């Protein structure tokens, strides 16, 4: 009865204040001084991997709070050592906790792409993402949609979050305003388009690679379906450059069912005819694949799968690669292999990249029976 009377006598305002105080006190008592292990299995690791200062490799998240010097100035960035001798890229990438950087030149945002990315079952704390988008209206729309998707994922369950995400905007004009399929694939506009694409890819890889990346996975924004084990499967072969076969699902109106057809023709084995063509070319001309005006008679990986006897582990050595999905050991990029934005042995972009990688002494392989799927416009 005494308790009740005392409560009756206090005014509601002081009761609310007292409750607030008690609540604050409890929270103060309970807030753990160290991150609790039970929140997430990976949060401890994520915490340790984080950089101290915002001036750090984009492949690392950084601490939001920054230390202050005793004289009141913001503390100078720390001296950070990176021992690249210990950096490995092996066939057991997940077990060795090797970091993967997924790079995507972004022209349009497809929800299917992001959903597929989230489904990858390689440990997400080892995956960093990098995007580059042109500074155009289309680019703005794509980035806005991307940021929305990122915000959702990065505030969701800790284990599903990616280690870090960088969004870059290009410092040069894209060659074409239209991303329309017909215009995009016209032969005359190909050289210009692919040179601009090369610059975008190089800008992306050389600013985000950082000192901790073991593998770089190039994945185009319109790849909407891959096996969830894509990273493990591609790194399993332990090859410097490896490319799966890029197909497209379509509705076959004659047979009235869904079917698949080849999409990316840039992965090929060179032919004598193509070499001959190249030899007679001007230094600034390029060889293109998949155009009737220029028959090269190269062996295209797109036509290699034998659908009666698919073996996803089958490898073929290639001379040119496509960039829709492409796994590269970070060392290859570190040695300087890039996407030539000029005719390099009459090749540009990803095909030129394969040539440069081979000149640096790396081998290039394709997986004809391992499919990833392109968006159907």
């Amino acid at each position: 009865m005494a308790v009740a009377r005392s409560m009756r006598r206090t005014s509601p305002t002081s009761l609310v204040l007292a409750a607030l105080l008690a609540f604050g006190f409890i929270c103060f008592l309970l807030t753990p001084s160290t991150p609790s292990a039970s929140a997430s299995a990976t949060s401890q690791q994520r915490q340790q991997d984080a950089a101290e200062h915002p001036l750090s490799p984009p492949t690392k998240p950084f601490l939001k709070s920054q230390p202050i010097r005793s004289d009141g100035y913001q503390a100078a960035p720390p001296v950070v050592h990176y021992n690249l001798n210990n950096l490995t890229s092996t066939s057991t990438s997940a077990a060795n906790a090797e970091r993967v950087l997924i790079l995507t030149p972004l022209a349009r945002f497809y929800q299917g792409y992001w959903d597929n990315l989230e489904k990858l079952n390689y440990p997400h704390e080892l995956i960093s993402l990098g995007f580059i988008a042109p500074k155009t209206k289309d680019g703005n729309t794509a980035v806005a949609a991307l940021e929305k998707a990122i915000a959702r994922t990065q505030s969701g369950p800790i284990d599903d979050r990616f280690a870090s995400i960088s969004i870059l905007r290009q410092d040069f004009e894209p060659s074409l305003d239209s991303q329309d399929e017909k215009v995009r694939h016209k032969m005359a506009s190909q050289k210009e388009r692919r040179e601009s694409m090369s610059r975008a890819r190089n800008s992306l890889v050389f600013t985000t690679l950082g000192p901790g990346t073991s593998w770089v996975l190039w994945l185009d924004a319109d790849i909407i379906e891959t096996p969830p084990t894509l990273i493990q499967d591609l790194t399993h072969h332990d090859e410097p450059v490896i490319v799966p076969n890029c197909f497209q699902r379509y509705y076959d109106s004659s047979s009235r069912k869904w079917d698949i057809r080849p999409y990316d023709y840039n992965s090929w084995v060179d032919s004598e005819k193509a070499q001959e063509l190249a030899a007679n070319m001007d230094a600034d001309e390029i060889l293109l694949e998949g155009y009737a005006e220029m028959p090269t008679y190269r062996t295209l990986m797109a036509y290699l799968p034998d659908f009666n006897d698919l073996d996803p582990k089958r490898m073929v050595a290639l001379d040119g690669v496509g960039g829709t999905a492409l796994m590269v050991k970070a060392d290859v990029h570190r040695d300087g292999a890039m996407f030539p934005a000029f005719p390099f042995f009459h090749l540009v972009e990803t095909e030129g990249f394969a040539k440069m990688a081979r000149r640096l002494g790396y081998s290039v392989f394709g997986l004809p029976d391992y499919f990833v799927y392109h968006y159907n416009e």
Partner: protein
Amino acid sequence: MNRHPAYPKGASAYPRGSNAFSISPNRFQPRSQPSLRRRRQLFQRLILLGGVSLLLVIFIFPSWRAALLPAISLGLLHPSADLQLQTVRYYDLSEVTGTEKGWERGERVLMLTPLRDAASHLPMFFSHLRNLTYPHNLIDLAFLVSDSRDDTLNMLSNMLQDIQNDPDPKMSFGEISVIQKDFGQKVQQDVESRHGFEAQASRRKLMAQARNWLLSATLRPTHSWVYWRDADVETAPFTIIEDLMRHNKDVIVPNVWRPLPDWLGGEQPYDLNSWQESETALALADTLDEDAVIVEGYAEYATWRPHLAYLRDPYGDPDMEMELDGIGGVSILAKAQVFRAGVHFPAFSFEKHAETEGFGKMAKRMKFSVVGLPHYVIWHLYEPSVDDLRHMEEMELEKQALEREEKERELAQQKEGTQVKKAQDVVNGDAAKGSEEGPIAHAEKNAGKGSSNK
């Protein structure tokens, strides 16, 4: 009864009854019924009991804390520090394209220095760093320590720590990365083998590889400029970054010379990798194998190219520019844009060149401007070659022999009982004469040796 002049028309902001002053603190308030009151007490006790037991449970089972705390704290408190991480970064590359007045616009410069067995050069290098006038907080430093057998790494990190903790807040630099990577370099680093013709091609390819590793690990989307600077530069203007930046070129290099001892002629062009392409060299390149690498400055490849180094006039205009095709790597200022576009140091034969010369060629291929400043000179450290060292040793021996002779003469004179003062004068005179004679005698013998070293 409206006494407010604020409402001249008699309209008020909110409706009021006819009686505006109806506040009555002593209004009658009906009491709740006793049964109702008892029920409320019961509720209060139950809530109190529940609260206390929840508190106990939370204290006893720590694993509950993580699950409960976010719910009861309404997201105001974070249960784990994981949420204190910033994971998303946004960069607009069109804001970091590089302009001629970078220091005013706060443009970040990445300064890159490859090091190998360079402990002896570090103190000199750090004094240069401290003296740089470009705002230090805008400079990010990156070092590559490779295949070092001396104390380079330890010394470097100690000196970097010191500079970052300097009491002067303007002294500390931006991001500092020390990259360790061994490339298994078999080639010796001493002057003799470093410049031998045979070793050049493979050595240059390894150097190129090292440069690419350093760059790709440390270039960030925030950089507007990249400045390559070797650790063994002895003298350079403090304002070198601004001086080169002011020209607003995509790639720019100063002229690099080195001082020599007087008996070798006083000074000499050092960096012969900065040149303009010549017809002869292009014709030569056509005859060579696809993987061959032309290295400049060797009799084996007579290219007849105009070299930046030889065009120096000590009294010339330091702002004069010269178009180049190949460049040397002692001190290069380039826009970060160039590297972002994919230009790098080819570790393969690119148009018959590798490393910095190939870099110049590739930049040109991608239509970037590549210039050198013939009359703006920085001085590379003079490291005596084996031959030079031998000669210096001989000179030293000769000098010592002379001194001994003089001493003997002095003793003899003292024995003869001559005045001490007079003897001293004679000795001094002889000594001065002796040290002049030695080098002159050797200078003729060594004429032209300097230019054959590089």
